Each structure stands twice: as C-alpha cells, then as structure tokens.
C-alpha cells in the first residue's frame, strides 16, 4: 500500500552515512514515520481519532497463513465473560462491555484516557475461513481468534517430476 517509494535501508547497497550522524538519524526517523503511517495509521496521531477502544469498537488485526486466519483484538480490562463472539455468514462480530472499576467510593479523576462501556465490531472474513472451526483465547487483554481455512483454500504443493 506504499504510495511513497521508500527504500529499505537494509537492502540498499549504497554506503550509509555514519548511523549517529544527525542527518542519518533524521532520515531514519522520517523513514519510520512513513512506514508507520502507511502500515498502521494507529501509530501516529490518528490514534487520537480512534482511541484504543471507543464507539468504533476495538482495533483489530487479521493475518493469514497457509493453514489459518488469525484475528486479534486488544481488549484491555475487559472481563472475558463479557465478550461475545459470533459469526453469521462471513461476518465476524465481537461484542462486549468494559465495565467501570467496581469501587464507586469518592474518587477524584486527574486524568482519563481509557474508555469504558459497550463496544461492537463486525469484520468480513475472507472466504477461505471456515466459520465452523474457530478457536478463541483471551490472554493478558488480547483476544485471539484462530479460524482454520477450508481444506480447498489451503495452498497445495505440486511436485514437479523430472524426466
């Protein structure tokens, strides 16, 4: 998705200026900035428009391997019992509620950046995922869903015979 061509420093054969040179550092920072901008809008200031958890729902990553599709969502502070996952057709829905801490005795908030409340997120799954073979785990605030691929969607190796 890179719209701006940038050269991976490790690949380039050209001689690099000394890594501790201020210009080299500036360049590496700019490279990182562009890389992060295109790869993950979340990393930059855009996170302000999309807090980690908000009405838009938790942020989700989806990765594909030969065997399965992995969906991960960051749900810090959510009790696994309050998370509801459903698949209808090819749409995966993660729904839940992050409850406010139980103590409601007098408290003064100095800083509030985390958000609470209900959230919901629906994602279309690729056709290769088998909705019947799903495995969900919740560990350290990260929800991981592993969907196996349909057998016919897995890549097959074709052996080449030499004659």
């Amino acid at each position, binding site marked *: 998705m890179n719209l701006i061509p940038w050269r991976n420093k490790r690949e380039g054969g050209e001689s690099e200026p000394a890594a501790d040179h201020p210009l080299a550092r500036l360049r590496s920072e700019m490279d990182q900035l562009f890389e992060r901008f295109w790869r*993950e809008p979340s990393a930059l200031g855009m996170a302000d428009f999309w807090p980690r958890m908000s009405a838009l729902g938790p942020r989700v*990553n*989806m990765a594909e391997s030969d065997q399965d599709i992995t969906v991960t969502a960051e749900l810090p502070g959510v009790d696994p019992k309050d998370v509801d996952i459903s698949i209808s057709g090819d749409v995966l829905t993660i729904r839940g509620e992050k409850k406010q*801490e139980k103590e409601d005795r007098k408290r003064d908030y100095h800083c*509030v950046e985390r958000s609470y409340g209900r959230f919901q997120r629906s994602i279309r799954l690729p056709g290769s995922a088998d909705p019947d073979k799903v495995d969900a785990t*919740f560990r*350290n*605030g*990260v929800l991981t869903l592993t969907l196996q691929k349909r057998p016919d969607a897995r890549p097959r190796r074709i052996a080449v015979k030499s004659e």
Partner: protein
Amino acid sequence: MSTNVTVKKPEGEVARVERTRDRQTYMPNVDIIETPDAFVVLADVPGVSADGVDIRFEQGVLTLHGRVEPRQDEQHTCYLLREYGVGDYLRSFQIGEGIDSEKIEATLKDGVMELRLPKSEAFRPRKIAVKAS
C-alpha cells in the same frame, strides 16, 4: 488472576541505555485517580505478561515499561487488516512529594496495570475533631 509485580528500586546511578530492540514503543492510555489515601494509575497494556513488566522509581520519576512479545513472526506475516501495531509500552510520571515510594504496589490483570501509590502519612487528609468546651 491478578499477579503481584515487584517494584524494582534503582541501584545507584542508572545509566540511560538506549534500547537496541527493533521494536515500536507506544504510550499506554492511563487513568489517574486520587483516593483519600493513595493515587491509583490504571494503564492499558494489552499483551504484557507479569514477567514483561518493569517499573522503576528514581529521582521522583515513576517509569512504567511493559515488554510485549511478538504475537507472530512480523517479517513473514501476511496482514489482511492491520489497525494496531504490536510493541512495547513506555510511560513516565513525575511523582510529587507525599508519595510513600517504599509502598508502591503494582498488579496486572487482563492487560491492565494498576499502580497504587500510597500517600505518605503526613499528606493524608486528617479530620480534626472539634472539642466542645
């Protein structure tokens, strides 16, 4: 399922060493709450396990560092959707006087770190009883 995390005290002068790991570092979102006898810091650090937590208090600065192990081989993963980046968490807080630094406690549960900074005796609110004469 909460785990107690020990607060490491710096030994002498701690050199600021730049981390060499090629990872992103994120600033966790926090809530800071004051109760009559303590300050409570709640930080969202999804993906951090108890042994990946490093909390330091030195020269009035409380530093919270959470290490996140990569969830998958980033180099060889084909992402269909990538809305968040996986990386370490780092945030520092300037702590004013009146915190009993010996008694700072930290717990980790479901990706949320709770730091409890008790106020020292002298700074706690006291009720002064009025004697009727």
